[in-house]
């Protein structure tokens, strides 16, 4: 005890420059809290909005700059790895966050007074005052910061902390929908309880790995596995629990149960943020853990991932068919896409092979992220008396009422289905090709079969929108605010451009993937 206590402590160092994008985001979040504290209500939104957007844009600029500088280092005493994949993921997350924030900025998504009981007098009063929680902006910033730290963290402790920093704000944001507040609150609670549960698993796994390796540093764990000494049961149980935590976050079966409920319940802008940003971040973390720390052990976890990937794809594709709520359906489709991504995770092998797979995954994430954000943006525009028109039957004949909107939505759906000349197609190709090269042809076949199934329910929505006659007193199409319009346009553009000229982004992804993960 005492001999522990008196080890000489050398003061550590932190590379603030390298971490600047994250620091900027977090700083802006704290500034946002200050704004909340010290500015009058009527000023807040007009202050928060620029703070949020500018900080995100600035962080993106910094990330790009670092990318051009070729920064590849493990900052903060090797706790945070700022390498190619991290930078790429940061860029992607920041872009998608900017887009989502434009959605968040749109009025009438968020509750006026979270503490007011639904349907109570005080809620009506809060509504009539037109108040809204501007705390949402700092919360979003915190979440984004967590998303950035999560895939970049190079040791399991930081990863855990980042996981929570990412999740906790999202738990809250889920519960802040203005319409259907009970759903929203239930979603928040489910997300919270399940999320906490899974993160506990992650933590215990971390503990066991620490017990195995005597360190939570990914590189150290890898070396220890390389020189494999004793306590293997610790190692295996630890890996299993770690896997549970991570697979939960990406929403892979059998840990996908939360996704539909949460996606449906939470405010659509937040759903967009989760469906894009969280997925990307979680995938980055998953890859880092399983490729860096457990890279020497792939013959052990690959079979499991085979099973998980197949299960995820099948469950996602099949259950999606039975859905009647558009957001729920998109949630299941996101599960299916998680499965497709997992196909490439399995395809490890030579360094070159890994790089190819990683590049494919990164590209897929970007392509899918934009498509999904756009899709949810469209969902926010199809309004009803009670808010968004969730039920599919309400979407019937949308193609006649507003062809443009329906057309764009159809475009996103086709991208999900992976039809050529949309981003989704090259995304699928980018993950399937390395998978075949990596000897996972069986998985790929399951993948294409399930994506055919998935295509069915995407097509069904298109049929509904275009081929069936509009429902009487159908939903009204909200005149999009500048933000929403921009989001939809941007996402559609991204989907098409990535579908026709994916080369630049592919180059970027592959160059980012070249130097795999720094140890």
């Amino acid at each position: 005890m005492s001999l522990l206590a008196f080890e000489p402590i050398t003061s550590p160092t932190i590379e603030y420059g390298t971490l600047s994008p994250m620091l900027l985001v977090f700083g802006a979040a704290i500034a946002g809290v200050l704004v909340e504290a010290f500015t009058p209500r009527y000023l807040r939104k007009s202050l928060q909005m620029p703070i949020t957007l500018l900080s995100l844009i600035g962080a993106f600029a910094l990330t790009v700059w670092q990318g051009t500088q070729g920064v590849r280092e493990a900052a903060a005493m090797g706790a945070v790895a700022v390498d190619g994949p991290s930078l790429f993921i940061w860029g992607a997350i920041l872009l998608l966050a900017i887009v989502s924030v434009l959605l968040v900025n749109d009025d009438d998504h968020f509750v006026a007074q979270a503490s007011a009981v639904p349907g109570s007098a005080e809620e009506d009063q809060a509504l009539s005052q037109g108040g809204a929680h501007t705390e949402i902006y700092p919360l979003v910033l915190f979440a984004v910061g967590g998303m950035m730290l999560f895939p970049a963290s190079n040791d399991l402790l930081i990863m855990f902390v980042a996981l929570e920093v990412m999740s906790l704000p999202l738990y809250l944001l889920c519960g802040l929908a203005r319409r259907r507040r009970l759903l929203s609150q239930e979603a928040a609670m489910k997300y919270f309880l399940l999320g906490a549960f899974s993160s506990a698993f992650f933590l215990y796994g971390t503990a066991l790995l620490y017990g195995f390796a005597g360190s939570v540093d990914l590189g150290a764990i890898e070396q220890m596995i390389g020189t494999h000494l004793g306590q293997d049961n610790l190692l295996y149980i630890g890996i299993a629990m770690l896997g549970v935590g991570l697979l939960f976050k990406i929403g892979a079966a059998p840990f996908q149960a939360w996704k539909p409920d949460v996606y449906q319940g939470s405010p659509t802008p937040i759903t967009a943020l989760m469906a894009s940003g969280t997925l990307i971040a979680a995938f980055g973390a998953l890859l880092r853990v399983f490729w860096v720390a457990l890279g020497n052990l792939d013959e052990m976890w690959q079979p499991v991932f085979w099973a998980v990937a197949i299960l995820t794809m099948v469950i996602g594709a099949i259950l999606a068919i039975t859905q009647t709520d558009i957001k729920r359906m998109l949630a299941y489709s996101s599960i299916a896409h998680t499965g497709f991504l997992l196909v490439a995770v399995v395809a490890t092998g030579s360094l070159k092979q890994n790089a190819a797979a990683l590049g494919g995954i990164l590209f897929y994430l970007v392509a899918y992220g934009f498509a999904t954000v756009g899709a949810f943006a469209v969902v926010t525009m199809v309004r009803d008396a009670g808010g968004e028109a969730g039920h599919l039957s309400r979407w019937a004949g949308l193609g006649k009422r507003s062809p443009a909107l329906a057309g764009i939505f159809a475009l996103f759906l086709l991208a999900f289905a992976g039809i050529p000349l949309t981003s989704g197609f090259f995304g699928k190709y980018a993950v399937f090709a390395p998978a075949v090269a990596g000897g996972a042809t069986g998985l790929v076949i399951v993948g294409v079969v399930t994506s055919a199934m998935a295509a069915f329910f995407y097509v069904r929505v298109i049929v509904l929108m275009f081929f069936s006659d509009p429902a009487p007193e159908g939903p009204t199409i909200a005149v999009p605010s500048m933000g929403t319009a921009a989001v939809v346009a941007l996402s559609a553009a991204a989907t098409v451009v990535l579908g026709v000229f994916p080369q630049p982004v592919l180059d970027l992804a592959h160059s980012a993937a070249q130097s795999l993960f720094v140890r």
Partner: protein
Amino acid sequence: MPWLSILMGVPVVGALAVAAVPKGNAKLAKQLTLAVSLVVLALTLAMASQFDPSGARQQFSEVHQWIPSFGVHYAVAVDGIALVLIALAVVLVPIVVLASWHDAERSDAKRSVKTYFALILVLEAMMIGVFAATDVFLFYVFFEAMLIPMYFMIGSYGGAQRSYAAVKFLLYSLFGGLLMLVAVIALYHVAAKGTFLQPELIGAVTDPATQKWLFLGFFIAFAVKAPLWPFHTWLPDAAAQAPAGAAVLLVGVLDKVGTYGMLRFCLELFPDAAKFFTPVIIALSVIGIVYGAVVAIGQTDMKRLIAYTSISHFGFITMGVFALTADAGSGATLYMVNHGFSTGALFLLAGFLINRRGSQYIADYGGVQKVAPVLAGTFLVAGLSSLSLPGLSTFVSEFLVLIGTFERYVVPGVIALAGMVLAAVYILWMYQRMMGGPTAESVRGMPDLNLREKIVIAPLIALLIGFGFFPKPLLDVINPAVKHTLTSVQAPQFTPAIPAAADQKGPGE
């Protein structure tokens, strides 16, 4: 001069222009579409005139990097086979446009007219692209992307069951396509050439087992596309529900992509596997021939009937393709073209009838030839071409196919002959039920073909008869290409077709 790019570009631009036409002004949209399609036709003819049958196999070829990191090129070129099919497409399009002048309005639900015609043009561009692509990946892209416009044409402008038919059509093709995607990826990986250029991939896959798997991957996709029994079930629905024009393009051109793909990819890339599977495929096609014919006889709906006839015809085509003899090969290719014309004519005429009578059930007609002789006459000619009466173009092709097949497989040839007999039954019986006999009340006062419809149908009849007597120009173009293909099939697997690959290097000549 980048002929093919222009050929693809013009319709796309035209489509955008048509889509940009103000909403009310449907007439302008139609005229614009017609003009564009005619321009494309003219360009194609101009290009064809420059095509040198005895020259290099691939002509007008363009190769540009598209996605280097996937080894994907924008590579287009035509050989004889592709050329005639492209010609088929561009000939049919203006006819279809003219034929379905009022279809868009007449379809029960009010849809925007210009969209329909814009879709036709987009489809034309893609049809040209799919035949011209010499990069496997590019081919796949067109192959899949083609579905979407056709899907919308059927789904929004078709008959009562349209959305069901459309979804069925899309999912069948998509499923096949995705299997093909796996094969494409695997091909790229196994060949390890780092490129998708079809000529360079020839002979790249040597391992027999791998060849067989990849072959299956491609073949199933094509079999679904060119409805080969037992993958055909989507065709009757789609064809029956689609508006006449769309049906013509669907059966006349789109399905040819399947047979074309078999000829171009299955045979050239996986010769040994092709040889290995030939018996099975021949069997399937024979079954298709007979099955299609028999079921056709039982049909009460003329569009479905025509659809089933073409299933039978596609049986002939696949049989010709996989007979692996020069005659059968060129016969099959020729058949693709002629079948396009004859079935097209049949569908269009059926469409005219339906527009007049408002029903596609054979039972609702009778004695039409008294009230509308021209209509009945053209219908007869088209029908006869469908049962390949000597003197009509289809006869030549079917004859060649049978000759070629008999060289190798006698029994299937004999059974196929039975198919011809059955063809006579269903066509003539349909004609007799609809056109002959006493004039039914319902068709009394049915107007005969008006000028537009005459203009539509005339060129088809002309082509049918013309090529019936003088198929040489087509055959001249087709034969060398087919021979070339077959040589690559006969080529022993150890020596990849180096000369073939060699003289196609570099863009065009």
